[in-house]
């Protein structure tokens, strides 16, 4: 085991531009393998999303990375330092909420943070007020946690990260239970964190939110990484669409057959005409071209909506039962997990 770990550690590049590096990580609970040979590389200063269906191993990956559970084999580094041996020192630079945030219910949100700040040291207690305000809990900080809603607990979880003034912010399902204002606040916070050249790891089922906050993603399924790479790469490889609403669908379809950027056009009773674009065609420019062609042919257009390839479609495709990852574009050498 030790020799294997040694080998696994040496398989890590230890490159300084990486915030997190995981190589060949395997975690078993009894006979059940939850993570199987997982390798992930997260560059510094990016927003990195971790996606996967329920039970895919996302939270276990984060818990293992943070030394909250022991791992079976593999190697990990955070900021080039081996984990878990260097975690006590590394935690000075890490703020993390893994799974649902847990707090003592009989004391206030502020008092919970005071306890965490006392454990943390490093002047964390001076950042409590800022953290509470930033997480949108300023008005409720002196209320007992027992009276907090799920969203308020999530905000307190975020505040507990902020008292660390972290270089690496790890948020696991932190959007759950937040109201729209809370979601917007957290979105802004995540964007600002990444904009200040710090690293964000964001684990969520809300794929739109991951798309907004992150530049890169890893998709886990059944304990394995089935995709890892930039979200832009997914957009580049997926199929873009243009949806059209007009007064004469039959005539529009005949016009669309001769539009160069369209490979297929079909009529749907609920969504109107759906035009599938050629690979590499920009949906906005294509929409302009299609609109011009339709108007030129005398078709009155009342709706034209370009749609970029969505992470959600990609995610569902990759993680659907029986999905062959070899046939998916993710299996290309550029985007497959390392």
């Amino acid at each position: 085991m030790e020799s294997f770990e040694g080998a696994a550690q040496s398989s890590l590049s230890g490159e300084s531009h990486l915030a997190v590096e995981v190589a060949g990580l395997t975690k078993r609970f009894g006979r059940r393998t939850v993570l199987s040979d997982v390798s992930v590389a997260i560059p510094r200063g990016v927003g990195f999303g971790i996606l996967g269906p329920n039970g895919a191993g996302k939270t276990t990956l984060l818990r293992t990375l943070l030394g909250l559970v022991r791992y079976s084999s593999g190697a990990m580094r955070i900021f080039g330092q081996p984990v878990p041996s260097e975690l006590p020192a590394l935690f000075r630079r890490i703020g993390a909420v893994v799974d649902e945030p847990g707090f003592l219910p009989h004391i206030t949100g502020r008092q919970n943070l005071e306890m965490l700040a006392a454990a943390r040291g490093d002047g964390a207690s001076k950042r409590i007020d800022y953290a509470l305000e930033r997480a949108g809990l300023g008005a409720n900080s002196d209320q007992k946690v027992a009276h907090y809603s799920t969203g308020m607990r999530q905000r307190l979880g975020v505040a507990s990260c902020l008292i660390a003034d972290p270089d690496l912010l790890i948020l696991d399902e932190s959007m759950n239970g937040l109201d729209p204002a809370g979601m917007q606040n957290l979105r802004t916070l995540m964007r600002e964190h990444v904009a200040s050249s710090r690293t964000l790891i964001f684990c969520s089922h809300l794929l739109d939110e991951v798309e907004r906050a992150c530049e890169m993603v890893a998709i886990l399924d059944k304990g394995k990484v089935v995709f890892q790479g930039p979200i832009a790469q997914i957009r580049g490889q997926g199929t873009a669409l243009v949806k059209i609403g007009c007064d004469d669908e039959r005539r529009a379809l005949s016009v669309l057959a001769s539009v160069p950027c369209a490979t297929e056009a079909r009529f749907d009773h609920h969504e109107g005409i759906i035009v599938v674009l050629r690979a590499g065609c920009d949906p906005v420019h294509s929409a302009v071209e299609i609109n011009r062609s339709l108007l030129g042919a005398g078709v009155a257009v009342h709706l034209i909506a370009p749609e970029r390839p969505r992470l959600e479609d990609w995610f569902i495709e990759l993680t659907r039962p029986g999905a062959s990852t070899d046939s998916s574009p993710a299996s290309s050498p550029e985007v497959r997990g390392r």
Partner: protein
Amino acid sequence: MIPPRTAWVPDWALIRTRFLELRRHRPLVIAMIGGNLGILLIMITAISVMHAVHPDVAPAGGGSRFTSFVFLMLATGVITAMFLGAIVGSEDLSSKFFRALVTTGRSRLALYLARLPAGLALLAAVIIPTYAVAVGCAVTLLPSRSFEYYYAFSSSTKAPGIHVILAAGGWLLLQLIVVYAITLAISALVGSEAPAVMIATLLVLADLVLTTVMHSHVLWSWLRFVDIEWILWGMRPHFPGIATCCGTLTGLSFSMPGWEQLLALVVWLVVPLGLGAYRSITRDA
């Protein structure tokens, strides 16, 4: 000064915040005060009322009453210490706060050890004033000398001496500290409060069985090393009027040298606390 992350000794700030957190556990604090000071006050009031109505009943002072108060406090204090230990030992785990604490980077051992003095401080904050009330009554509400007839010992009607007060207080506190520490360790070991109280109660019952076995089978006297109640009972100071208060207990013989008692006590504290610490360090958060 920032404590090093790997330091296993908890610093003052950590212990202080833990104590403040426990102090804000309102139902716990109310139960502790009610279960100790409240019950003692009820007893004192009842005795005083009975004495007022029937002058034959001795007032709530003197050595014999003092002994009764101490043993009442022992009974209520053990229950209090048990529940406090169970809560302090695993409330972080049940609320998942332990995970948040671990991600601060502080040593898990330091987090575990910080709970011990914090809970003890709360226990002392309830027990010491209660004991002061008991002592105050025992010293001020003295019976007249005519009650010596009933007690058969002149010391029973006199105010307990300072040595008796200090020794009895120390012995009471020691008993409660041991119960608290063992229950805390069990709680940290099993990770849940209710099973910890159940196991600690079973331990007390098992000790009672052991005591009985030791007395019916002289050859099994080696069992005294595992009977913590027996060990602590052997450390008791001389209580005034104990013949009238705890007659059955005075019939028991005890032949354990002081160093054996001390050693057994240390083992009884170190082993469970060590196991609790080991579990805290190795458990999944």
